[in-house]
């Protein structure tokens, strides 16, 4: 039986009906990994033994008559910058190559509570810094739609694994687009929740004020279910928001009549490929046809999102990554003669070029004499960007646009030109700066490559996003197209 493109909610029904066991689902996933991962290379670490143990536990629980949570026994892959107790967590960096956390991230505790089956840790750009998954210190991941192309980044491993049927669900992290971009490039659903909706405890920090963990899935229902599982207040994260959790799945009824959606002209103009624009315009027609009221609007400070992001994120990163010094854990250079030498050699040898670039950018931005001109100025502009969104959300329930200006590009195409690489995130960065939720939903193909529709909501407006995404999905068949592998 070919299970690998079934969704979690389909598998759940089969599990509950006794048509299939979690062990069978899990084995089928590992079977699929064996078939395709040589080409895709989505995983850094596989945890087959633990996964099968967990699957058997779920099967026993079902046989004992326990009511299974919606995602019990469902395989999930975890981006390798989320700490898993006893399982190596590398951040795709040489500096943490051997690092085994003694604790679980809060989201992992939540997956465990849901009785999900964690199958392994997925590849990423080192410390989540990148847009192509090429910055992994170990190997690049391929796009399942075209193996010569990148899956997007930084959560490229998670997106590729979901797209290729190597897992049913996956977790990623999104600091400037790191979930939505690979979701768009790989043709899956990927969501960045509101800042504070999902605990960051145990997510290895890149830029603390922007990082957010979120779900990857093959349809909107699965995305809602995984979001249900991971979100909620966590006392271990001071920036985690206390808010009333709703069951997002129950809100998926396909009714979007009268919803007001704005299309920021800054996200549909120059720099966006014509093929992408076409796909988005078709999506607008679909949503209009369903009764949504859609018009053009403006986010005047959008052009500053990229420079602001590349001051704030590296500034925080320069401090967050200072702890990798070879003292207590992680890579330590063999060649060091004294403490300073140990710091310098361990970090020079342990970090890749993009990480070093951002540490240097951030260190500079925070330095005496430059702080006001760069970091502080960036904070002020960030406030303006946030105000743009506040303004827009006074009028609209939702904003809409493309996730990326282009489809998946070829491996090696942009890796030597950081500026070109950074521009890939031009539509997604402002969402993190504003702290609001956004989703990428498959909206069709352009030149045989997937294009994601970007839906952006108010703070804690996940339900609006999911509702519109679901209506769109139910009235199109893009989510039913799979790469031929």
């Amino acid at each position, binding site marked *: 039986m070919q299970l690998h493109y079934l969704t979690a909610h389909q598998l759940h029904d089969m599990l509950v009906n006794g048509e299939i066991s979690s062990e069978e689902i899990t084995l089928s996933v590992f079977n699929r990994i064996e078939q395709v991962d040589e080409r895709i290379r989505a995983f850094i670490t596989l945890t087959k033994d633990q996964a099968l143990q967990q699957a058997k536990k779920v099967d026993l629980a079902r046989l004992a008559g326990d009511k299974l949570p919606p995602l019990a026994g469902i395989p999930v892959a975890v981006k390798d910058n989320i700490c898993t107790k006893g399982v190596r967590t590398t951040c795709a960096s040489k500096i943490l190559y051997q690092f085994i956390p003694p*604790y679980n991230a809060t989201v992992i505790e939540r997956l465990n509570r849901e009785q999900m089956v964690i199958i392994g840790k997925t590849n990423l750009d080192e410390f989540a810094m990148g847009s192509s998954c090429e910055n992994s210190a170990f190997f690049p991941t391929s796009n399942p739609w075209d193996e010569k192309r990148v899956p997007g980044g930084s959560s490229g491993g998670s997106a590729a694994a979901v797209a290729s049927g190597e897992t049913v669900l996956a977790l990623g992290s999104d600091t400037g687009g790191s979930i939505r971009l690979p979701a768009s490039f790989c043709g899956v659903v990927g969501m960045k929740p509101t800042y504070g909706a999902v605990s960051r405890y*145990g*997510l290895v920090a890149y830029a603390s004020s922007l990082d957010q963990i979120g779900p990857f899935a093959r349809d909107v229902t699965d995305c809602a279910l995984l979001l249900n599982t991971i979100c909620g207040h966590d006392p271990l994260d*001071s*920036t985690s928001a206390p808010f009333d959790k709703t069951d997002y799945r129950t809100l998926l009824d396909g009714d979007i009549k009268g919803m007001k959606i704005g299309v920021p002209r800054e996200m549909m103009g120059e720099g966006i490929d014509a093929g992408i624009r076409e796909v988005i315009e078709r999506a607008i027609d679909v949503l209009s046809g369903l009764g949504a009221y859609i018009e053009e609007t403006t986010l005047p400070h959008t052009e500053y999102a990229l420079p602001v992001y590349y001051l704030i994120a590296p500034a925080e990163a320069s401090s967050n990554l*200072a702890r990798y*010094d070879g*003292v*207590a854990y992680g890579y330590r250079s063999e060649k060091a003669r004294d403490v300073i030498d140990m710091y310098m050699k361990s970090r020079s040898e342990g970090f890749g070029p993009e990480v070093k670039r951002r540490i240097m950018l951030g260190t500079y931005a925070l330095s005496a004499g430059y702080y006001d001109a760069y970091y502080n100025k960036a904070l002020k502009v960030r406030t303006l960007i946030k105000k743009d969104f506040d303004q827009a959300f006074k009028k609209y329930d939702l904003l809409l646009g493309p996730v990326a200006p282009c489809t998946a590009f070829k491996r090696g195409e942009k890796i030597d030109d950081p500026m070109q690489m950074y521009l890939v995130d031009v539509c997604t960065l402002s969402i993190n700066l504003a702290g609001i939720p956004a989703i990428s939903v498959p909206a069709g193909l352009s030149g045989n490559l997937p294009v994601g529709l970007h839906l952006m909501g108010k703070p804690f407006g996940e339900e609006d996003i999911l509702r519109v995404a679901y209506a769109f999905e139910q009235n199109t068949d893009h989510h039913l197209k799979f790469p031929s592998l």
Partner: protein
Amino acid sequence: MSQYEAVIGLEVHVELKTNTKIFCNSSTEFGAEPNHHICPVCLGLPGVLPVVNKKVVEYAIKAGLALNCKIASFSKFDRKNYYYPDLPKNYQISQYDLPIAEHGYLDINVGGKEKRIGITRVHMEEDAGKLIHQGTIATTPFSLVDYNRTGVPLIEIVSEPDMRSAEEAIAYLEKLKAIIQYTGVSDCKMQEGSLRCDANISVRPAGQQELGTKTELKNMNSFKALHKALAYEIERQIEVLEDGGKITQETRTWDEARGVTLTMRSKEEAHDYRYFPDPDLVPLVISEEWVKEIQYAIPELPDQRKERFVRELGLPDYDAEVLTSAKELADFYEQCVKIYNNPKVISNWIMGDMLKMMNAGGLEIKDVRVKPEQLAKLLQLIDNGTISGKIAKNVFEEMFNSGMDPEIIVREKGLVQISDEGLIEKVVRQVVEANPKSVDDYKNGKKQALGFLVGQVMKLTKGKANPGMVNKMLSDMLDN
């Protein structure tokens, strides 16, 4: 040589006495096995996040209020970035531009002169760990890190440059220590490092308004060291200026063994800490009600207690000042007064014999074995004539050393005062007969001869004769 004036400001770190660390649940207990009070958070492992301990904020506010500061209604934590192996994240979570408390003061008294010293700010931060070297840091083949202290809560109290001498600086630090101890937020033990002090110091020709170039002094581990270091540095700076030189702005370390300050790092080598708001912590919004609640819970502070001692117990200013300088000493005193209601007599005993013995032994009040009830009992023994005041001094010394009850000491050593008239008369006659010359001297008007004769009686009775009775009996006998 022209007159110079020193300008001194102190930066004092105080460890707060909370049960758990500032950003995690690890214990703050002192003296545990290395790396026994640690967790992923204080170790700064990848992915962990700090959550502020509310008790730390409460204690910092309490200290701020006790130091007459304004408490911020909005405050935040910042990261201070620098690399050192005892700092696992390579940044310290501290407070930069919005500290919890600002604009306070405390009053000191040096040589009978009151002076108000400004307190710029009080801020919260986390402590670092401890490096353990084999031998010295310069020659050790490797160093070990003990993270037990990592994340222990500190407040840093920064004074205005209002002190003009080493004596004023010491008085400030003593007063600060007393106030903090009174609030109960810290033990302030300098030897255990729960009170640490750095000094900023410059000199200028007397009368000049403009400040001279300052140096920062570190590594003073006792009040004595602070005093010596400041005195040395003042002299050194004056000498440099007198020789036509310039003071270099730098950080200097006190070398206790050699009794000198030495260059540690120059201004050029100073760190750029790249402070920025810690994005892992949300700003603190502090309600007026909470501050009021904390204010209400602050106990009587040294100045108020001193005033009360003067007002209610009739003590001289000086006595009250000394007795209230440490909370435990004042508590000891008040307990004595409760049992034995003669405040001045008790003050004399504590400020005389007891403090002298404590200083000689380098002891603090909590190390003293004499209990307030015992001191009171000793004084009662004098009053009821069981022992003389002179004997009492010996008894007290014994009590101080052994912690024994005065009654037991008096009984065991046979120190009970002789008040038997017949017995004393016998000895007095003996002394009069044995010292005809002194008797003659006395009768010829040399009244001081009486003292010698009294001394002889006391000597023969091993000090136990009731001195009042001896005196009276002798003069009666000789005058007739």
